[in-house]
């Protein structure tokens, strides 16, 4: 029942997105603009600053992800469909999981484009260890989606939700960002610092687990008025 409901919500979001692709395209374009702005800021005499690529990649993911979160939950606010979802005869946390997975998929698609682009623009050697890179991106993105989806859901009815989401989300995701960036830097060293990267991946995994458990526990009490 739980998994089925979560997957139904995911499929519904997917169906909506497939029709207009609005959130996907705009999120992608925003991420690209981020990369542009940061590149201009962090390039010195035509050469990218060392390790800038890692930082810029994760900042773009975080900024674009924050916007995507806001828009995804705005969709549920429009017809008060969030209320209808909360009325479904399934554990309410399943709805949270469905939305969270949707964000992970959306960001994953964005990263498919962002990562090669950043590697190209910064002449960075991001693909030395593709498996580790994917694991790092996955654990970091999941952590961000887990925390972000909960906060975005709880802010749906707040008037100041647009600005509150970044205010609350950015400090909370600091360890995720540190892990993501440092892990990515480790992967771009010569030779690749595998041990560090693996350590960061494991740390990110722990964070994901703790945050997910907390989110599953707190979603229902939060959503009941």
């Amino acid at each position, binding site marked *: 029942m739980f998994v089925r409901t979560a997957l139904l919500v995911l499929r519904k979001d997917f169906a909506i997105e497939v029709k207009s692709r609005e959130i996907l395209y705009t999120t992608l374009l925003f991420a690209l603009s981020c990369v542009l702005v940061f590149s201009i800021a962090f390039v010195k005499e035509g050469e990218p600053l060392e390790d800038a690529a890692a930082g810029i990649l994760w900042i773009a993911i975080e900024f674009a992800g924050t916007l995507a979160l806001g828009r995804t939950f705005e969709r549920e606010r429009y017809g008060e469909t969030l209320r209808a979802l909360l009325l479904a005869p399934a554990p309410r946390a399943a709805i949270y999981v469905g939305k969270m997975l949707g964000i992970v998929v959306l960001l994953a698609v964005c990263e498919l484009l962002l990562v090669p682009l950043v590697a190209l623009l910064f002449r960075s050697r991001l693909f030395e260890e593709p498996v580790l890179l994917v694991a790092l991106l996955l654990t970091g993105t999941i952590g961000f989606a887990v*925390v972000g989806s*909960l*906060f975005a859901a*709880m*802010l749906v*009815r*707040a*008037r*100041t939700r647009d600005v*509150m989401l970044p*205010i*609350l989300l*950015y*400090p*909370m995701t*600091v*360890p995720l960002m*540190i*892990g993501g960036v*440092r892990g990515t830097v480790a992967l771009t060293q010569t030779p690749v610092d595998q041990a560090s990267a693996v*350590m960061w991946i494991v*740390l990110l995994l*722990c*964070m994901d687990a*703790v*945050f997910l458990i*907390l989110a599953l*526990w*707190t979603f229902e*009490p*939060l959503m009941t*008025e």
Partner: protein
Amino acid sequence: MKKAFLPLLLLAAAMFAYAPVVIAHADYESTMGLVQKVMYFHAPSGMVMLISAVVCGVASALYLWKKDPAADRVAIAAAELTALFGLIVLVTGPLWARKAWGVWWVWEARLTMSFVGWLIAVGYLFVRKYGGPGSDKLGAALAVFGTANVPFIYVSVNIWRTMHPMTTVVPTLQPGMRGAFWFSALTLFLLYGLLLTARIHLERQRTALDQLYLAEED
């Protein structure tokens, strides 16, 4: 508790008044000079901030799951004090760092943890103020996540870089400084307890007032 409040308050005031004397009499640290004495406020404030953050987190968890309004009162009081003592840490830290290491700020585990923790505490206060309906539960969730986050922030920044004096700064304090340190720490702990109690009391009055308004309508 109420009876003990006033005498304890007087005690805290007296200790505060006496503290500069104690601190002045403590050994003078040769390399840093007078600025080193900031440490007598900085380190205990850091401890208080951490304790307050945990109090807030635990109270928030209780509020979310047991829906006990008393827990919510403790949470909001503790959050305000976390922000206050966090501010003290963040202001006194750079003052010390400038003299000790020549820079105003370093990105190391405890300072970063304090900064992020402070941002989360301020975020909590913003949510309570501007969050709209249900903001009490939003804040509680934020506090629970924030408290769970603290070890992660510490570990991740620690692995990243380390420059702060190690936690063992207390045992390896010169004997001449220990007395002053513990006196300051005790003063600040006492002050924290008093402020927390007073703030919870204020919140309780506020709830009682709301109840009176509601009862008056009946």
